[in-house]
C-alpha cells in the first residue's frame, strides 16, 4: 500500500494516508490553536482557501502546489516546512504529491477533523434543565433557589438566615432603583405585616421610573455610551436621546429581543417610529477621530470594529473581535466569519436625526395639521387651482439652463479630507477647521461660461442631513472666489469678478450665534447670497431656514462681469472662504460647507432655480404618476408663489416659525443601493485586520459555530438583529441573565461576562444559568404581576429578588469567608460597594438634594475648571456648571467627556466609554475617600443633611442623630453608634464655641451667616451637624449594599 517515490500509482485516501501526515507535522502551527500565515490545514474549507501566501493546493498538480514545494524546501521564498521539526520523509512527500495529483479529494463526510471546541457547552443552545431535588425543601422560595441549595448541600454549607427587613429593603431599593429607601418607605414596609409585603415592595420599585435609570446605566456601560467623540478633539456629541431611549425601554419592559432588534436595526423595522430610529444610536456610540490629517475612511472602519466588539460583548458574550486580525485563537470563529458578520454593519450612512420630545411631537403634528388645513382652504376657495398650477408648471418646467458639473479635487492641504461622488459633488469629512479657505481645482471644456452654480446638497452623513457641517447641518459661505486659467496656456489666466448672485434661499441677515464667536468682538453676520461676493470677511451667505426646514439642498448662482471664455478648456480654481466659524476648532464651532457641487453654464442670464430640488425632481415625473405626497409637495411650493394667496401664505409662514427645535441624535441609515451615492459597499476580509489590506470579498453571514440564519434571510442589519436574539442563539440569553446575576451578586455564574468561549471558567451553577436563560426566553413561573411575557427583564428581576438566595443575610464568618471569599456558592447575601453613580446618588438622596427628574440633556455638576483647559485637556472644553437644582440630578446624566472623565465617577471605577464594558471592576482607594470627604457636592450634601436634620429631625440631639442616620442607612443606629455620634456632636460644638473655627464657613462653605435657619437653631448647631453628616456620608455602610 505504499506509494513509490518515483510517482504514486496507488489511490490516496485522505483519512488513511494524508490526514496523519498533516496532523503530525502541520497542525501545531496551522491548526485550531495557531494559524501561522493565516493558514489552517485542519478544516477543509480553510485548507483550500490557503493563507497569506495564497492557495496551497492546486488540485491535479502536486508538484506546483505550494504545500509540496514547502515541505520539499524548494520554494524560493518560503523556508522548508515544518519549521521546527525534521523534514517530511520522501515517502510522505510523495504521498502528498500523489494525493494532490489525484485531485486532492478531501471528503466532506469524513467530518475530516472533528473540532472538539464545537462541543463547548456555550456553543449549544440552552435546554431547560430539571429543577433539582433538595433535602431542605423549606428553604427554597422558587426554582432558582433549588439550584443554589443543591450545590450548598453538596458542599455541606447551610444557607444564611434571611436578612432583616430594613437591610433587605435597602438592598432591594439600591438594586432595583439605585437609591436608598426613605424613612417613610422603611416605616411603611415595617408596618406592613401582610404575607406579600416584600413582593409589594418589589412591585413598587419595579414600577418606579428610577428602575430604568439604574438598570439603564448598566446597559449604557455595555453600549459604551458617552457624550463626546473621544480621541484628540473629543468634541461634545448629541446622543442623549439614545440614553433616554434606553431608560424608557427598560421602564416599559420592552422585551429584550425587541430591545436588541431596535438598537441594531430599529430604522429598518416597517414603519419605524422616531424612537426606533433613535435606538440605533447604540451602534453610533463608537468613538470618532476628527483630528487634522486623518483619513475618515480609516476611522469609519475603526468605528465598525468597535461596533463588532460591542455586539460581541454586550449581546453575544463572545470575544468575536479576536478574529479581526486572524482566526480566533481559542474559539472556532474564523477571520472570514468575523468579516461576514462585519458585512452586515458595513452598509450604512453615519446619520443623525432630529429627535423630538413627546410635547414637541404633538406640537409638530398640530402645526402640520394646521398647515394642511390652510392649504386645503386655498384649494377650496380657488377651484381652478389645479389648472393654474399646471400652467405654472408648464412655464417653469424647462426654464433652467444646462448646468455642467465641474469635477473638482482638493487643491489645498491634506488636513481636510473629502469623499468624491459620481455626480461631481464633494463631501467634506474628518477635521473641520473653523476659519479657513478651502481650495479646489477642476477643468471645464465649456468654451464660454456665463454663470457658475454652487449647490449645497443634503446628505445623510452630515449633521442633521446637512447640507453644512455645523451641529445643525448649516454652512455659511464668507466668500466665493474663482480664478480661471487657460488649460493650454497657464500664463493666460483671469481672476473672475462676480457682479451678481442669486440663491434659492438665503436667511435674513442675522448675527452669528454665540457658538461661532471668534472672540474678535466684531459684528459678524450671515444672510443674503450677495454677501458671498462682497469681498468682506465678516459677511456670509446663510441658509438657515429655521427648525423643520433647515436641512435641505440649496443653491446659488454667481454671474461674472465678463464671461469666462477659453476655447481650449479652462482650469477653474475655486476658493471657498469659510470664516464664519468660532475660535475653537477643537469644539463644535465649524460653519463649513458639507456636500456641494459646482457647475457651469454658457447662459449669461442664469439665476438660481427658485424651485426646491425635490420639487424640481418631482416635475420629471408625469403628473398622472405622481403620488399624493408628491402632489402635495408641488402644491406647497406653488402656492407660496401665488401673490393672491398672501394671507394664507403668511399664516403658514407664521406656523412654521413655531416649529420645535428638537435635539439631534446620532443614528444609522441603511444604504439603499438604489443610487450611486447609496450603493452597497462590498466587504473584504482585511489581512491582519488592516483596512489598507483588503483581501477576498466576503458575503454577509454568521459563524457556523453559532445558530443558523433563516433560509431566506437578506443581508440587512435587521437580519443580523433578529438572528442575534433568535431563541436558538446559544449565548444571547445566557450572556444577559449572567450579567444581571453579576449585578446582584457581584460575580456572574460565568465569571467572565464578555467571554463564554472555550477559555472561560466553567459556570459556578451551569444548570441554573441554563434554567434562567430558558425561563427568560419562555417564562413558566408567575411571580408578582409578571405576565409570562417572553424576554421580560422585569420577570428576571422578580425571580431573583424574590428568591431565598437573594434574601439571605450578607454577614460572613471567617470560616465561610475562607471557604468562599467571593461568595460564588451563595451561602450568604451579597455585600459590596455600589457603583460610582450610586455613591453620589445616595449622598444626594439622603441629604434631600436629589433632583429626581428623569431624562433630558446631560448635566454639568461642579468640576474643577482646569481639567477642561489646556494643558490638562487637549483643547479648551466647555463645562458650564449647571445651577441648582439641575445639577443635583442623578449621576447617569452627568456629561461624559471621554478624554476628561468626570473625576468623582472616574475615581469610583465608572468606565469612560472608550469601549464596551460589561463588567466594572470595584476598587477601594484613598482617592475615593478624598472624594466623599471633600468633593464639592459631597460637602454640600453634608451641609444640606445637617439643615434637613435640624428642620425635620425632631427636637433633641438623640432624635436628630437617629433621623440623619436613618436617612443615610435606613436602619436605626445601635446604642454605641448613637453614643459615638452624640459625643462627636458635643466635641465639635465645644470646639466651635471655643472659637477655633468659623461655624458659618463650616455650615455654608462661605463666610456668611446661614440664611433661613429654623427657629431656635444656631449656626454652631448647623456647623456641628454638618460635621456629623459628613461622618455619615463617609461610612463604609453608606456606599455599600448590605
Amino acid at each position, binding site marked *: 500500500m505504499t506509494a513509490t517515490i518515483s510517482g504514486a500509482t496507488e489511490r490516496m485516501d485522505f483519512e488513511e494516508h494524508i490526514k496523519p501526515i498533516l496532523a503530525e507535522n502541520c497542525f501545531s502551527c496551522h491548526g485550531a490553536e495557531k494559524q501561522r500565515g493565516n493558514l489552517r490545514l485542519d478544516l477543509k474549507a480553510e485548507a483550500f482557501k490557503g493563507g497569506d501566501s495564497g492557495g496551497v493546493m492546486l488540485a491535479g498538480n502536486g508538484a506546483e502546489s505550494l504545500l509540496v514545494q514547502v515541505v520539499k524546501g524548494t520554494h524560493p521564498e518560503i523556508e522548508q516546512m515544518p519549521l521546527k521539526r525534521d523534514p517530511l520523509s520522501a515517502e510522505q512527500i510523495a504521498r502528498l504529491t500523489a494525493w494532490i495529483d489525484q485531485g486532492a479529494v478531501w471528503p466532506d463526510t469524513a467530518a475530516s477533523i472533528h473540532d472538539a471546541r464545537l462541543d463547548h457547552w456555550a456553543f449549544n443552545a440552552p435546554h431547560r434543565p430539571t429543577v433539582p431535588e433538595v433535602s431542605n425543601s423549606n428553604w427554597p422560595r422558587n426554582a432558582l433557589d433549588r439550584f443554589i441549595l443543591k450545590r450548598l448541600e453538596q458542599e455541606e454549607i447551610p444557607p444564611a438566615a434571611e436578612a432583616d427587613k430594613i437591610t433587605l429593603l435597602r438592598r432591594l431599593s439600591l438594586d432595583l432603583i439605585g437609591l436608598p429607601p426613605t424613612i417613610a418607605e422603611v416605616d411603611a414596609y415595617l408596618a406592613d405585616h401582610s404575607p406579600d409585603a416584600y413582593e409589594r415592595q418589589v412591585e413598587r420599585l419595579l414600577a418606579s421610573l428610577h428602575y430604568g435609570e439604574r438598570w439603564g446605566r448598566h446597559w449604557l456601560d455595555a453600549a459604551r455610551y458617552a457624550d463626546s467623540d473621544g480621541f484628540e478633539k473629543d468634541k461634545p456629541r448629541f446622543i442623549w436621546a439614545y440614553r433616554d431611549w434606553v431608560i424608557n425601554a427598560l421602564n416599559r419592559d420592552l422585551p429584550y429581543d425587541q430591545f436588541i432588534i431596535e438598537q441594531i436595526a430599529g430604522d429598518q423595522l416597517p414603519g419605524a417610529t422616531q424612537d426606533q430610529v433613535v435606538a440605533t444610536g447604540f451602534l453610533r456610540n463608537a468613538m470618532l477621530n476628527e483630528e487634522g490629517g486623518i483619513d475618515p475612511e480609516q476611522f469609519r472602519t*475603526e468605528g465598525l470594529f468597535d461596533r463588532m466588539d460591542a455586539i460581541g460583548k454586550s449581546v453575544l458574550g463572545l470575544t468575536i473581535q479576536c478574529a479581526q486580525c486572524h482566526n480566533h485563537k481559542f474559539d472556532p470563529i474564523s477571520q472570514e466569519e468575523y468579516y461576514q458578520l462585519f458585512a452586515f454593519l458595513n452598509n450604512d450612512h453615519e446619520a443623525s436625526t432630529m429627535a423630538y420630545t413627546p410635547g414637541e411631537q404633538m406640537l409638530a403634528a398640530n402645526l402640520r395639521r394646521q398647515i394642511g388645513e390652510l392649504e386645503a382652504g386655498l384649494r377650496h376657495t380657488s377651484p381652478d387651482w389645479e389648472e393654474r398650477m399646471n400652467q405654472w408648471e408648464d412655464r417653469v418646467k424647462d426654464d433652467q439652463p444646462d448646468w455642467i458639473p465641474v469635477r473638482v479635487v482638493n487643491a489645498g492641504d491634506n488636513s481636510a479630507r473629502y469623499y468624491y461622488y459620481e455626480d461631481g459633488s464633494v463631501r467634506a469629512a474628518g477635521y473641520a477647521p473653523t476659519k479657513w479657505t478651502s481650495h479646489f481645482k477642476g477643468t471645464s471644456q465649456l468654451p464660454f461660461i456665463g454663470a457658475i452654480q454652487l449647490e449645497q446638497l443634503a446628505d445623510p452623513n452630515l449633521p442633521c442631513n446637512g447640507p453644512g457641517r455645523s451641529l445643525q447641518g448649516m454652512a455659511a459661505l464668507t466668500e466665493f472666489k474663482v480664478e480661471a486659467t487657460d488649460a493650454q496656456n497657464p500664463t493666460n489666466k483671469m481672476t473672475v469678478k462676480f457682479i451678481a448672485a442669486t440663491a434659492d434661499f438665503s436667511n435674513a441677515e442675522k448675527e452669528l450665534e454665540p457658538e461661532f464667536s471668534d472672540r474678535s468682538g466684531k459684528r459678524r453676520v450671515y444672510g443674503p447670497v450677495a454677501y458671498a461676493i462682497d469681498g468682506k470677511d465678516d459677511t456670509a451667505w446663510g441658509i438657515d431656514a429655521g427648525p423643520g426646514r433647515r436641512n435641505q439642498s440649496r443653491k446659488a448662482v454667481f454671474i461674472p462681469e465678463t464671461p469666462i471664455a477659453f476655447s481650449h478648456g479652462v482650469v477653474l480654481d475655486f476658493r471657498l472662504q469659510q470664516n464664519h466659524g468660532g475660535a475653537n476648532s477643537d469644539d463644535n464651532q465649524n460653519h463649513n460647507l458639507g456636500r456641494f457641487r459646482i457647475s457651469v453654464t454658457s447662459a449669461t442670464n442664469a439665476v438660481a432655480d427658485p424651485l426646491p430640488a425635490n420639487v424640481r425632481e418631482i416635475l420629471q415625473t408625469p403628473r398622472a404618476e405622481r403620488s399624493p405626497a408628491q402632489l402635495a409637495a408641488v402644491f406647497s411650493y406653488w402656492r407660496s408663489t401665488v401673490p393672491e394667496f398672501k394671507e394664507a401664505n403668511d399664516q403658514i409662514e407664521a406656523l412654521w416659525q413655531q416649529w420645535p427645535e428638537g435635539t439631534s441624535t446620532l443614528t444609522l441609515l441603511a444604504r439603499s443601493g438604489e443610487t450611486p451615492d447609496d450603493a452597497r459597499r462590498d466587504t473584504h476580509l482585511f489581512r491582519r485586520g488592516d483596512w489598507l489590506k483588503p483581501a477576498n470579498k466576503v458575503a454577509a453571514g454568521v459563524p457556523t459555530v453559532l445558530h443558523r440564519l433563516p433560509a431566506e434571510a437578506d443581508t440587512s442589519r435587521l437580519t443580523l438583529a433578529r438572528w442575534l436574539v433568535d431563541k436558538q442563539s446559544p449565548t444571547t440569553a445566557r450572556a444577559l441573565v449572567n450579567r444581571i446575576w453579576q449585578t446582584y451578586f457581584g460575580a456572574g455564574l460565568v465569571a467572565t461576562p464578555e467571554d463564554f468561549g472555550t477559555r472561560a471558567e466553567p459556570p459556578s451553577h451551569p444548570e441554573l444559568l441554563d434554567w434562567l436563560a430558558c425561563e427568560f426566553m419562555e417564562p413558566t413561573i408567575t411571580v408578582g404581576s409578571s405576565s409570562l411575557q417572553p424576554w421580560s427583564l422585569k420577570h428576571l428581576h422578580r425571580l431573583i429578588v424574590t428568591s431565598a438566595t437573594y434574601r439571605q443575610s450578607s454577614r460572613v464568618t471567617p*470560616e465561610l469567608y475562607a471557604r468562599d471569599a*467571593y461568595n460564588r456558592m451563595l451561602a450568604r447575601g451579597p455585600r459590596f460597594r455600589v457603583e460610582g453613580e450610586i455613591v453620589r446618588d445616595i449622598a444626594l438622596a439622603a441629604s434631600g438634594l436629589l433632583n429626581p427628574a428623569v431624562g433630558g440633556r446631560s448635566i454639568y455638576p461642579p468640576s*474643577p475648571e482646569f481639567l477642561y483647559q489646556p494643558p490638562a485637556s487637549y483643547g479648551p472644553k466647555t463645562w458650564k456648571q449647571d445651577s441648582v437644582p439641575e445639577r443635583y440630578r442623578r449621576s447617569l446624566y452627568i456629561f461624559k467627556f471621554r*478624554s476628561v472623565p468626570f473625576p468623582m465617577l472616574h475615581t469610583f471605577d465608572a468606565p469612560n466609554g472608550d469601549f464596551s464594558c460589561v463588567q466594572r471592576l470595584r476598587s477601594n482607594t484613598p482617592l475615593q475617600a478624598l472624594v466623599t470627604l471633600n468633593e464639592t457636592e459631597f460637602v454640600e450634601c453634608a451641609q444640606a443633611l445637617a439643615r434637613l436634620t435640624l428642620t425635620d429631625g425632631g427636637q433633641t440631639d438623640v432624635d436628630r442623630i437617629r433621623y440623619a442616620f436613618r436617612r443615610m442607612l435606613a436602619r436605626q443606629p445601635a446604642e454605641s453608634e448613637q453614643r459615638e455620634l452624640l459625643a462627636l456632636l458635643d466635641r465639635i460644638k465645644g470646639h466651635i464655641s471655643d472659637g477655633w473655627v468659623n461655624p458659618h464657613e463650616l455650615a455654608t*462653605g462661605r463666610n456668611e451667616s446661614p440664611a433661613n435657619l429654623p427657629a431656635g437653631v444656631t449656626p454652631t448647631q448647623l456647623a456641628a451637624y454638618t460635621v456629623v453628616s459628613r*461622618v455619615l456620608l463617609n461610612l*463604609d455602610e453608606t456606599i455599600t449594599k448590605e
Partner: protein
Amino acid sequence: MNCQSHLYRGFDPKTITRRWFFQQCGVGLGAIALGALLRENGWAAPTALANPLSPKQPHFPGKAKRVIFLFMAGAPSHLELFDHKPELTKWNGTPPPAELVKDYRAAFINPDAALLGPKFKFAQHGQCGAELSELLPHLAEIVDDLAIVKSMHTDAFNHAPGQILMSTGSQQFGRPSLGAWTTYGLGNESQDLPAFVVFSTGSKGPSGGASNWGAGFLPSVHQGVMFRSVGDPVLYLSNPKGVDQKIQRDTLATIKRLNEKRLDVVGDPEIATRINSFELAHRMQLTAPELMDISKESKATLELYGAEPGKGTFANACLLARRLVEKGVRFVEIFHEAWDQHGNLVADLKKNCRDTDQPAAALIKDLKQRGMLDDTLVIWGGEFGRTPMVQGGDDGRDHHPNCFTMWLAGGGIKRGVTLGESDEFGFNVTRDKVHVHDLHATILHLLGFDHTKLTYRFQGRDFRLTDVFGELVPKLLA
C-alpha cells in the same frame, strides 16, 4: 504570610477579623473585585485578599525600580534636534525621490512636497561624540549618560492613535498604559502616594486625554493620577472650608470607629480595606502638600532645573518627579504637548527647547548626584517624528511615523551610545530599527519583566503591553 491563614485559628470571629486585618494586613490600597483577582491568580481559588499595589517581585531582578517618562507629545522634529542630515540641506526645495514616497501616506501634506533642510546647527558632544542640535545645550552636558535611539518607528501618523500606541502599545483605546502595567507588575513603594503620577505642562493636553494614563482593563487602582504643581496637587485633597485639623482628625477617628463597629457586625474584610483607605487618604493630605512644595529646595537645585515655586512649568514638574520617585512613587509621566510644528518650526522649537532642555538635563544630573539614576529609568520622546518634506512655506514639517528619535537614561540603560541610523533624508530607518513595541519590551525588561509573560487575562485572552509583538533591544542594555 498568607493573610487568610489567620482565619483558621479558632478565635472569636468578630475580633479576629478586625484585629487580624489591622495587624497583619497592614495598609492595603484596597481589595478588588472578583474578576480582577481571578484574572491575576490565573483562575486559581482565591487565597488572599490582594492589595494590588503592594510591592511585588518582578520576573527577575530589574535594573530599574522606577520610571520617569518625559512624553514630548505632538512629535518633536528629530531632524532639528537629534538626527543631523546635512544632505537634506542640499536637497532643500526639491521633491523627494519618487520611490521614497511611493505609497507613503501623509497626514497633511502631499507626499511629493519639497524637502526641507534642517534649521539648526549640530555639533558633537561628550566622550561619546553624539551629535546634538544647538537647541539642546544642556542635554549636551550629559550626553554621555544617554542612549539616543535614532531608529524609532511607529504605526500611526495621527496624534491620538500615535500617542495611545506609545502609551499603551495599541492604537485602540482602552488598553492599560505603560505606567499601569508597571504598577501592576511592581506595585508601589510609597504608602501614602499614588503609584503612578501624571503631569501635563505643555500648551495643550495630550491627544486622547486620560486614556494615555488609563488602567484599561486592569483594576483602576493602576490608573495614573494627575497631579498639579499649582493649587491642590491632587483633586479634593483639601478639607472643606471651616474644617480644621482637629475636626478632620475627629471626623476620621469617628468614621473609623463606626466602620470598625460595622466590621464587627458583618465581618466583611472589605470594611477593613475601607478603613485603611481613609487612613491613607489622611496621610496623603498631610504629606502631599509638603512634598509638592518645592520652595524648600536649595537655590542651587531650583536653578539647576530652572524651577520657580508656584508655576505649572515643565521644570517644576521635572523637579517634582524627582521628589516623587524619592518617596517611592513607581512611575511619573510628564506630558508636554507642544511639539506639533506644522508651521512656526524655528520659533516654536526654540521656545520648546528653552522650556524643556534644561529641566530634562537637570533631572538626569540631579538623579545622578543623588545616586538614583542607576535604578531610575528616564525616557524622553514623542509619538512619532516629522517629515523631511516641508509643510506650508519653509517653516513646518508634517507627521512622520517611519523614523524618529528618543533618548533613555539610567535604570540599566547603556551610557553614551547612539543606536540606529536613518537614511540621508531622515525618512526611513536603515539600521537597528526599534519599534514602539520593542521599546516597551525593553522598558519592561529593565524593570525585571519578560514582556511576553507580564499578562492579564481579559476577554478570554492573555493581554500584554506588547500585544503579540516586541523584541528586546539588547544593544540598549548596560
